[in-house]
């Protein structure tokens, strides 16, 4: 049986070059970068070299990169830290309805300490309208945080335009680039943002590492109080092997970005073209053109995602779903809901996320395996039954 991993949005493989780069730091190079001796010194050098590579991926000054333990920590640090430091200036934030929970729930936590949060919506393609951001900004807004691209729908946001608006209004702008970094070209100065989060494990680096870039001069309270690591902006002994892995992953991502994107999007486009032809009542989610090169996301009407995942898994295919039943919290995707997709349709969500290990044949295998699975589940579904009895194919519509 083939093994077809199509869940790179949940986790990417760690590239062999990356694993190799980490090994010396896990073995002889175990020193603490803060130590004043040779062991410490080589660890510090490895750390700073990795910082330069991560900075290079996003066109940033290495001194402005803070390493964190994951994208979630980067987002918590940015949202709570920038808002917290600006408390005297105001207590209003602007985020979007499709932010990752690490941004959204950080904003909720701020609400408990007196902040107000404005949440701008998205259109049917999951796009934020910059004009809505403009309208949401107030005199007392201290932070705008809108993600660079959404991993569930693949939609890439108009970051430059939002940045321009925020800048004109004098409000710092953070963007969560966890799903985008390494996949599409990003330059913090071209984008015009003030802070940007990224993570290692979505770009073929190890888990347990993320980074936050914060433009010099922007005040931010640390989230992790402690020692003076990371310029006093993040306490805790640095995860040197992980950081070095992220550095190598970032370097490779920068070097091979175009060819990777071309390769991934060819498979993505094949699936987007052929799957709706092979399965009726299946629709693309997210933006048809402005999307991450690896993302092909759909909703399949009348059935629930978990069943599809289990059957696909039996056939060696790994994917994910934004369905309520596949989330540990048993909540449907807030992203699909923000795109206006009805709750029962969103339950049939299927997310294929391509990676460097995929082959064009993988698309064919999905096209072979998935239609009978959908058919089988629909035959069990009382919703499909009702749909057929109520006139069938004539009046189906999702979007």
């Amino acid at each position, binding site marked *: 049986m083939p093994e077809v991993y199509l869940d790179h949005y949940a986790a990417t493989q760690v590239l062999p070059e990356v694993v190799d780069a980490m090994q010396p730091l896990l073995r002889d190079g175990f020193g603490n970068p803060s130590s004043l001796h040779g062991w410490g010194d080589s660890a510090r050098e490895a750390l700073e070299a990795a910082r330069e590579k991560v900075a290079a991926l996003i066109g940033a000054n290495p001194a402005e990169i803070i390493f964190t333990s994951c994208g979630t920590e980067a987002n918590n640090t940015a949202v709570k830290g920038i808002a917290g430091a600006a408390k005297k200036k105001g207590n209003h934030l602007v985020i979007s309805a499709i932010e990752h929970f690490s941004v959204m729930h950080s904003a909720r936590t701020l609400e408990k300490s007196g902040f107000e949060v404005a949440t701008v919506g998205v259109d049917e393609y999951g796009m934020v309208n910059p004009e809505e951001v403009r309208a949401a900004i107030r005199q007392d807004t201290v932070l705008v945080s809108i993600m660079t691209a959404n991993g569930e729908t693949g939609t890439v946001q108009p970051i430059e335009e939002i940045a321009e608006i925020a800048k004109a209004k004098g409000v710092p702008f953070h963007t969560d680039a966890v799903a985008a970094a390494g996949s599409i070209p990003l330059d913090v100065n071209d984008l015009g943002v003030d802070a940007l989060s990224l993570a290692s494990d979505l770009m073929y680096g190890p888990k347990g590492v993320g980074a936050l870039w914060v433009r010099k001069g922007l005040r931010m309270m640390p989230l992790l109080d402690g020692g003076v690591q990371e310029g006093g902006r993040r306490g805790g002994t640095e995860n040197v092997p992980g950081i070095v892995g992220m550095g190598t992953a970032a370097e490779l991502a920068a070097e091979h970005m175009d060819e990777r994107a071309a390769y991934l999007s060819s498979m993505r486009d094949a699936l987007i073209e052929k799957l709706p032809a092979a399965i009726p009542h299946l629709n693309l989610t997210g933006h048809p053109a402005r999307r991450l090169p690896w993302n092909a996301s759909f909703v399949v009407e*009348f059935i629930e995602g978990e069943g599809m995942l289990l059957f696909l898994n039996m056939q060696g295919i790994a994917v994910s779903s934004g369905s309520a039943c*596949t989330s540990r919290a048993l909540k449907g995707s807030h992203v699909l809901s923000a795109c206006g997709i009805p709750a029962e349709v969103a339950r049939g969500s299927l997310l294929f996320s391509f990676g460097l290990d995929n082959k064009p044949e993988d698309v064919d295998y999905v096209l072979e395996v998935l239609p009978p699975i959908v058919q089988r589940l629909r035959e069990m579904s009382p919703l499909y039954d009702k749909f057929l009895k109520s006139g069938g194919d004539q009046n189906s519509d999702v979007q």
Partner: protein
Amino acid sequence: MIKIATYSETVMDHFMNPRNVGEIEDADGIGEVGNPVCGDMMTFYVKVDDEDRLNDVKFKTFGCGAAIAVSSMVSEMAKGKTLDEAMQIGRKDVADQLGGLPDNKMHCSNLGADALHKAIEDYRNKKKES
């Protein structure tokens, strides 16, 4: 890479090969339940013989793997039982027969017994009316 530890083997078996899926065209009773929390839906169809025994039970289910396995297990447990016996089948019995359900799925997906009971009540109501 195909093991899913979330579910017991029995759950996976009933999910992969559900017993008694379908509709009974001339059902004696139909029970429909929908879970407002996560939106699972189940429809049970029963056929009752002269001795008040369930001689056929079928179902359709929209929901996660556990919901499908629960429906299948309930249908199997119910078949051949008298109506009174079938009314005794509780949620916990079903979960036990399945070798357990994940904690977070106990509430949402374990509606099969309710749907069965509704179908039996539907039959009894119809009988009363007629």
